[in-house]
């Protein structure tokens, strides 16, 4: 039961987090391909993927020589910073304090930027660089998530499978619809991922400090429930706060 909980939560966290990152990279690569040329898009993507594989091959084996308690501690802290950042942003977006991430908008902004340098070899180079940068930056996040959720329990293979599955699903949907994947509930996914990664963070920092969590690995599910409940309450409270401001001062309330 414990093992099933750990494997399934690792797979789910890795799949969902990678899915969100890959959707964002896909939007930029699509913009490069459609507005400039597909050659630049594929070269930029390919170069970034090669570099990412090299990073995994270099840093993956290095992690095996780090004592497990230290690894759990470091990964726990980094996951906490990463997860809380996502959770905070997702709560603020869900409650309307900051705008939702819009893949259509991101696509149009990138396409507009690329159209301004439509011709010449420099334009091709910049287009390739855009694809490279997007895949590299989002890819680093995917690599971090895979290593962070997988390595402390020796489940990197399962975490990698989750990321690969996400890659396959995004590519499949992307090839079918051939436009930005704007209908994916990105903020809800980010909220779930924020909750999952923060739960892993609490669990592993505790383990590194010698905390004997009740239910062992199943404690992760308990953290998920607590954090999800907190997020739901926070969203509700912030939404009603906005409503109060809107009612008392409609003009300023609209700026929220």
């Amino acid at each position: 039961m414990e093992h099933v909980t750990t494997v399934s939560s690792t797979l789910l966290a890795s799949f969902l987090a990678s899915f969100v990152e890959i959707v964002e990279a896909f939007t930029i690569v699509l913009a490069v391909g459609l507005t400039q040329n597909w050659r630049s898009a594929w070269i930029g993507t390919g170069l970034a993927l090669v570099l990412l594989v090299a990073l995994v091959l270099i840093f993956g084996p290095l992690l095996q020589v780090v004592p497990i308690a230290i690894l759990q501690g470091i990964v726990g802290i980094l996951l906490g910073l990463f997860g809380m950042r996502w959770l905070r942003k997702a709560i603020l977006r869900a409650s309307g304090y900051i705008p939702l991430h819009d893949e259509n908008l991101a696509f149009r902004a990138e396409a507009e930027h690329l159209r301004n340098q439509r011709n010449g070899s420099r334009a091709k180079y910049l287009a390739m660089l855009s694809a490279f940068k997007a895949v590299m930056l989002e890819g680093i996040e995917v690599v971090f998530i895979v290593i962070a959720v997988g390595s402390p329990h020796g489940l990197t293979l399962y975490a990698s499978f989750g990321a690969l599955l996400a890659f396959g699903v995004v590519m499949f949907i992307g090839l079918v619809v051939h436009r930005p994947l704007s209908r994916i509930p990105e903020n809800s996914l980010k909220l779930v991922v924020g909750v999952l990664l923060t739960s892993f963070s609490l669990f592993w920092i505790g383990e590194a400090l010698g905390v004997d969590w009740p239910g062992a690995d199943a404690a992760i599910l308990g953290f998920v429930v607590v954090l999800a409940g907190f997020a739901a309450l926070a969203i509700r409270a912030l939404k009603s706060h906005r409503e109060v401001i809107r009612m008392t001062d409609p003009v300023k309330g609209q700026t929220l």
Partner: protein
Amino acid sequence: MTVLRILWNEMRGLFVDDGALALLMLGVIALVAGVITLALLPPLLGGLVLVVGYLLVLAESLYRFTRHRRP
């Protein structure tokens, strides 16, 4: 140098959005590590402080952000 700076900013951006949130979180972790190591609290109670600390830090960050957005 510029490339390194861009890389550093991107890497920092992965983990830090609200600097105060990150600092407070590290403070909570250091506090819990301290009280468990010095045996001031049993580890499980220290773990509980960690969970509550995370929630308080997140609540503080949300409150601070929305307070600044108040008309």
